[in-house]
């Protein structure tokens, strides 16, 4: 940014969104710092700026205009922007809900899961990431630990590991937690039929769709 020229809110949002979309890590830092300097609400900067850019990235990925290299670089840019804005968030913003997410046991594929997490966060969800190769008890224990989880989301990329999702559903039932959460599943071998078979509540084929399903599951638009 040149000199002391004041930037409008809209211009800063545009820059943030652009930076994420282009994977421009210099621009994202510059724009995020400008947002703080101008006293712009951090929540607004994340939603109207960073998240708007990430949503566009998601749409481009869905349409096969973007591929993994672009998505991964944009995701990193998004995280860089968040890092700067996060300390300035006001504490009482309304989030659509809390998602507990992990790749199921014996599966280490986490690229897709990480993209889903970025998109959910970009839409305001609070996401707790359990990582990959997550045993059923880890889902259960985490719910007990944090108290309130709205959605348990699981990813599996192999036909070998997808049955692990059913084990999580069973574990939640056994602990009397099944009715307290919604369950959302995804990953390449997963289908709507499989979702119904294991008694989960929602399925999405990609991250953009995943956000829509998550919102539907918690009853927001």
């Amino acid at each position: 940014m040149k000199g002391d020229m004041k930037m409008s809110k809209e211009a800063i949002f545009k820059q943030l969104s652009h930076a994420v979309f282009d994977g421009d890590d210099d621009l994202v830092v510059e724009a995020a710092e400008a947002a703080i300097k101008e006293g712009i609400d951090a929540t607004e900067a994340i939603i109207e700026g960073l998240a708007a850019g990430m949503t566009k990235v998601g749409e481009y990925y869905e349409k096969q205009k973007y591929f993994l290299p672009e998505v991964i670089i944009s995701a990193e840019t998004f995280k860089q922007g968040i890092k700067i804005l996060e300390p300035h968030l006001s504490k009482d913003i309304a989030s659509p809900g809390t998602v507990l997410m992990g790749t199921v046991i014996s599966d280490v594929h986490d690229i897709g899961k990480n993209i889903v997490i970025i998109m959910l966060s970009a839409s305001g969800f609070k996401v707790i990431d359990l990582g990959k190769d997550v045993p059923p008890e880890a889902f259960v224990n985490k719910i007990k630990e944090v108290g309130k989880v709205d959605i348990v989301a699981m990813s599996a990329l192999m036909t070998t590991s997808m049955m692990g999702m059913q084990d999580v559903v069973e574990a939640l039932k056994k602990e009397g937690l099944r009715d307290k959460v919604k369950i959302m599943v995804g990953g390449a071998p997963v289908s709507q039929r499989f979702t119904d078979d294991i008694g989960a509540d929602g399925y999405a084929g990609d991250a953009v769709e995943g956000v829509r399903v998550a919102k539907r599951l918690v009853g927001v638009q």
Partner: protein
Amino acid sequence: MSTEQMTCKERVQAAVKYEDIDRLPVFKGYFSPARLVDRKMNYSFFTDAEAIAEACWQAWKYFDDDGIHLLDGGFMEEEFGADSIWPENNYPMINHILVTDHEAADALKEPDPYKDSVFTAILKATEILRKKAGDEVMVCGFINGTFNYAARLMGTENMMNYLATDPELVHKVCRKVADAQVRYAKAYGEAGIELIFMPDATSAPACISPKTYGKMALPYLKEAVKGFQDAGALAMYHPCGGEYPIIDQIGQTKADIYYFSELVELDVAQKIFVDRAAVAGTVNGSRELFLGTPEIVDEHVKGIIDRLKYRTGAIIMPGCGLSPNCKYENVKAMVDATKEYGKN
């Protein structure tokens, strides 16, 4: 015709050239047959040539399909210098990412097919199987795609990043991988392999753009395919994952067989490649083979065959590698359905 008139080998060879065949060939596909000989997929199995040969032989007898298929093609990553993890019942994995910069790429070792702990067993198994199989059935080998190996050496997520920020690093690793693939193929050829299967999911549109594919992956895949063919084997290339956007480019690899996932219609692919290359695959490994029943599989395979315009030039098989715990009765149903509906 009630009795079959061609050997498995004749059938596959003729189908690849779009010649007349008694029925469409079928491959059981790629999954570990260790279970068939009551073995776990562990270090002791993967390095035991007799056991591998026996398991592959039993699998051919059991499923009664048109090829003997060796499992994973060695452990090139370890030969490149990676340290490994051997799970109690799964394929080996590497413990640490090997290449994070140019220095590490320069320092990669040169894989030697005759020192690779797994591949030496596979070569010996190939020889055993060739003797047993005679002229009846082809022994089919496996060498992973250039990008698949590169991704394992660099970490997939990192590699995707380098493709955008440091493509030269990716080139450097792919150069070494392609050379190694050719060396492995040569060793396979000397052991008598007749077909080499090369899956490359990491260069497919599920991961990278068609433009990046053409620039970064295609040149190496071409070299690998040529290496397979120079070694005397048919090359079966599997661009795994959302293949349509690169279907115009994959033909440049000049592979003998293009093996597609369930995301491609086999009849459409066949019309594109008619008289140039055979097409294979497309039986849905998750929805039908894993979650379905023999009746569902039968119906699904019948549909795929009924839609084909030419009753040659196609091999029916699962759209992708199957998990070791796949339902054998469903795989068998796929083979039986091909024999029934694929008759000429």
